[in-house]
């Protein structure tokens, strides 16, 4: 009888429902990891990093109107642990991305680590509503997991999303390509995975972290984590509709790296952004963030040791006599701990770029004017030293279309705060980048810098 009772008890327990947590909030940010901008609207991916909400739906992707208080134009729930996002926008003035019909509007590419999914969410051009009807692409595999980095190749009829991974077999550099011009992503070649090999056919160690595409050369640039005394900048040419999953074979894409030693030892390349101006035959200027580490210890340990400072590298990318990628450092600017994202602001007529670079661990956003060499650091209260863009900034975005407000226009930059669940807008007058400032809530671009000691506008947070 006792045995029977135990069986019944066990069956009863088995019939009970699992406790299912609520989906992540769709009216606010929750551990945001990345931000983007489309049609002056802010796109924010939240990660549910503390798993307070449901694993499968605890994350979110929100499109909000940049007004105070913020209003949500579109929202979907995504799986927990969102990574970086990239926006493939057919209407992007700089690099229009011809994503597949039938739905109109842009596609938000969002890798999510835990479930190893990539969301390809649609943003309605008219009102910013988000939709995701089976838009998830499973990218897991035996050799890869934790998709995180996101990038795009747009222009010249090409619309492709790229995803890098935080976890790969043997630490190999692996990249996934998703063809955004296709509606049937199960078709052959629509989703391709590439693992890179280096000198002597050895696998290339270091997870892909930064992705940038040069449409004028159909060339993709990849940065990756350092695992030895030095690293390199890899390129992949996308010409002739080649396949990245067949590198080294007939029909496979061409790929290569900078020469050994071109990237100084002890520098781990992180973010990369290309100049907004491309002159045929001239070197392509690139801006890269880099973290300084101990190359000697790293060579021994096989992993990066130390994180001593961060640099914003100003680099000219060109081909040398032998057709190899040349990495010419023009300038290097110390920006502090946790050098991460880099973005180029909207172009200025007849002038070099203005660049935003994030030193995440220091909580500082740098604005660099490549025309004058001037630079300004934002993010710390000048009186108290308090972090103004968050203790752990995560995600950097630039509105591709300047706002009115000064003669040359005002670029709007956004910095997400992972820990404090807000996004801070920063206005950069393009004709005077040194006047970049954090702004008051609802302030007009270029004209409402916060006063010393005042709190800036924090979208999703307190005013």
């Amino acid at each position, binding site marked *: 009888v006792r045995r029977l009772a135990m069986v019944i008890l066990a069956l009863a327990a088995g019939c009970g429902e699992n406790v299912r947590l609520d989906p992540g909030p769709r009216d606010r940010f929750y551990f945001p990891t990345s931000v983007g901008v489309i049609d002056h609207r802010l796109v924010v991916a939240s990660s549910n990093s503390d798993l307070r909400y449901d694993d499968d739906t605890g994350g979110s992707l929100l499109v909000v109107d940049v007004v105070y208080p913020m209003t949500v134009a579109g929202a979907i729930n995504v799986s927990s642990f969102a990574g970086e996002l990239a926006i493939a926008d057919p209407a992007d003035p700089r690099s229009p991305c011809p994503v597949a019909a039938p739905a109109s509007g842009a596609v938000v590419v969002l890798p999510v680590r835990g479930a190893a999914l990539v969301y390809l969410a649609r943003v309605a051009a008219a009102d910013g509503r988000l939709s995701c009807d089976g838009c998830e692409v499973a990218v897991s595999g035996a050799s890869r997991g934790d998709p995180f980095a996101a990038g795009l190749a747009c222009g010249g009829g090409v619309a492709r999303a790229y995803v890098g991974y935080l976890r790969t077999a043997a630490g190999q550099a692996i990249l996934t390509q998703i063809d955004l011009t296709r509606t049937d992503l199960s078709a052959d070649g629509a989703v391709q995975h590439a693992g890179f090999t280096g000198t002597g056919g050895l696998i290339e160690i270091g997870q892909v972290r930064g992705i940038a595409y040069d449409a*004028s*050369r*159909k*060339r993709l640039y990849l940065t990756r984590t350092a695992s030895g005394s030095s690293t390199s900048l890899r390129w992949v*040419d996308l*010409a*002739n509709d080649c396949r990245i999953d067949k590198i080294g074979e*007939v*029909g496979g894409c*061409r790929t*290569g790296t900078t020469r050994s030693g071109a990237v*100084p*030892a*002890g*520098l781990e390349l992180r973010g990369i952004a290309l100049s907004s101006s491309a002159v045929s*035959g001239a070197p392509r200027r690139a801006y890269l963030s880099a973290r*300084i*580490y*101990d*190359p*000697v*210890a790293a060579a021994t340990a096989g992993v990066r040791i*130390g994180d*001593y*400072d961060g*640099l914003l590298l100003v680099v*000219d990318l060109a*081909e040398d*006599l*032998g*057709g*190899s990628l040349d990495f*010419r*450092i*023009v*300038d290097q600017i*110390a920006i*502090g*701990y946790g050098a991460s994202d880099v973005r180029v602001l909207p172009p200025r007529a007849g002038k070099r770029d203005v660049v935003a670079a994030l030193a995440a661990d*220091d909580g*500082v956003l*740098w604005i660099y*004017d490549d*025309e*004058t*060499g*001037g*630079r*300004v*650091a934002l993010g*710390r209260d*000048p009186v108290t*030293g308090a972090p103004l863009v968050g203790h752990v900034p995560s995600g950097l975005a630039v509105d591709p279309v300047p706002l009115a407000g000064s003669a040359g226009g005002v670029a709007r930059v956004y910095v997400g705060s992972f820990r404090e669940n807000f996004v801070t807008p920063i206005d950069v007058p393009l004709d005077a980048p*040194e006047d970049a400032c954090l702004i008051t809530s609802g302030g007009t671009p270029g004209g409402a810098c916060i006063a010393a000691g005042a709190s800036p506008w924090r979208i999703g947070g307190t005013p």
Partner: protein
Amino acid sequence: VSRARPLALAALALALALAAAACKSTKSNAPGVRLRQPAAVAVFQGYTLADTGNLKPYLAVANAARNDLSVADAVTGEAIKSPIQLTTLAIPVEERPSLLAAASLGDGKADLLVAVSAGDSVLQVVTTWDPSNAVFSVPGADSPAVDLGADVLALAVVPSAEKTARIAAALAGGGIALVEWKRTEVDPDLAIELVGANVQALGFQAVDLAAMPADLPAGEQKLYAATQDPLAGGLYGVAEISLDLVTVRVLGALAPTRLVAAARLKERQDLATAAGGTAFDGQPRLPRVYAVLDESACGPGEAIDCGIVTLDPALAGGPAIPGDWAGWMPYRAPMRVPGRPLALAVAAPPAEPPSSDPGDAVYQDDLMRLRMKTVDGGTLTLATSGVAAVASDDGNVYFLDLGRFTAATARSPIVARAPGTPAATPVDGKDVWLLDGAGSFPATATEAAATIEVTPGYTPTDTFAVTWQGILPDLEMRAAEAGVAAGEPWLALQSGDGPDAPGRIVNEVVRVWHPALGVRAGDVAVILAEGVPAPCVGKAISSSSKPVFEAKIEALLAPSELHPGGAMQLAPVAAPEPQWTVCYDALKAAVAGGQLLGGLTATIRAQGLVLVGLATGYAGRPPLAAEHRLEYPGKDAEAVLVAACTLEDWDGAVPAPDCLGACRDACEALVLARKARRVHHTFEDCATDPDDDPGACAARWPGTTFPVASGPALAFTAAVRDSTPSLTCPAPPCQVTPGTAQRNLSLRLSGVSGGTTPLLARAPSGAPTHASGAIAFDRSPWKAEDGYRFFVSYPGDLVFDVSPSLDPPDRKTIR
């Protein structure tokens, strides 16, 4: 059994041990300075809490990550304690200090100390004259701080009249400022007040600044600015700026510059070989500017090699590099250091000699001590007139002997001869070996090495290979495309997108039109068969290799929109394999209609012997059984070659200049000449190192008269010998069998070296390699034996305190 007794004994022992420990004099470790991401260093004299009544030298370190300046005793390197004795003194400054400069007012009182925050236009002033060390961060009526209106990118101290101090600032946007302070009249013993700032537009962007030391007559004092921009007349180099900031003259350096320093010193007599001060006897003190050349426009393919170039202000207005002391090159070659220089500092001779030893009395005022090793490991002490420290991104601090305008070496390069270790791998019973002067093959590697000619000062450190039909550097398994010209196919090493069309994207363009790559008519193109249409299947060289076919490079085609790097007109080889003919014809047919055939892969091989260095790259085509000399042709010859080579400054633009026949010969000669330029200014002769046996030294370098020693970087005679027992070729040299059978016959010369081992100091393990700043400091007035020092800051929370005045380079780490 009772355990009470042992326990009691143990307790007693423990109590005694504790008591003994308590009785010991306890002394905690002295706290470090507690640096936090040092971005800049400066030494100032002033007052701090450590000694409120006495003027002392202090090291100020800008802690970028903590928004303050750490202060340490510049003599001992020890931290200055804060008012709360548990921590070290830190002077708060504005956000992320990145630049520091300290200037004496020449009155024996407290110095001016200026700090600049990253991305800021304000020169903040630290009150060195008051132990409170308060900081004036905001300009104003009663503040010595000054806002220059644009981001400050670099600072330099400019000598000034007594009781005044001047600092120059390079400003973002192409501006420059000269700011002057003076000892205040209200409180003449102490304070410093702002006099004013002169801000001017330069028209170029200065990225670093320097000024001559104070002992130059006031009217001759100038500012020197490194810049990557072109200056007057399109010249690149350093800008000399008058102190009213109005007049700018160019010091032409043949390349843009990134870092600059200045000194006034004696330079050795051109042919002086002495280690001591006699090398400088009778020499005048001359102003000299030293600049790090920008790597984008220097190197073996450019008009000047990379390194630290010497400039003579007396030549301002044009090319300003002094002449080569040996008369063999048109200018004094730059001083080379490995890696990419990140910081440069120059030290003048110390005020006090390093000891009271009469023999050391010479090392002050005009001369300073620099220590090398002798051949036996003893100390070889040099007297010189200026020393520079160069912090490189390889993690080392290298030293330059400015008096001898050379990179300091650990020992004399002439105490050993390093022609490399020859090694050959026989193929098909033959190998490539060296021939001696009598036309015989030396029996051993040592004897063979003796036939190789190297020249201290010209021979680079490298490993070379002489290979029969070797692969040309950079031209192995390259992407290629084919087209047709004059009915025959051409091959271009490039990767294009889609069919021929206007604006076609072409990547991986190998500029075979440029002679630097060494491609010549008659060379061999080896093409993978897999990219060529049927019926081509090719022939594999081995079971593990892909099938290929070969074609002869009949001629070079000039660059065009179709092949922007130029192309190689192909022809069938003289004695082809059957499949080669099939593939060649298939290739010809595939492009016959004028269409492009992409997706090919090709390797280019020399038609005969080719010399390649791992670092040097293409180094010419040694003839069989005749001498090959990789040698600089002399001071006037390079200019002649430049004039004859229309491709000298070709940047890859299409159309490219025509260059065939004599032009190509001149270009290739120019390419090789530039690879044989001076790499080191050897000053030694056989008597310089007292431990070197003069007789052995003379035998080591027969026929060489030091220090001039102008000669080839590498010279040798190679030929093919028969190593089979049957000796099918008994009389050397043998011939190589045509075809592929004996291809890759190779003679490897590993360990070729000019003998230069740099004198260096390396930051301790656990440190990053990216120095953030460097300054020189004369510690001798306070601690004579320490002599002159260099403080080099690293973002890994340390400052390296180093001096080559001691052997080995004395190094301390301040954390």
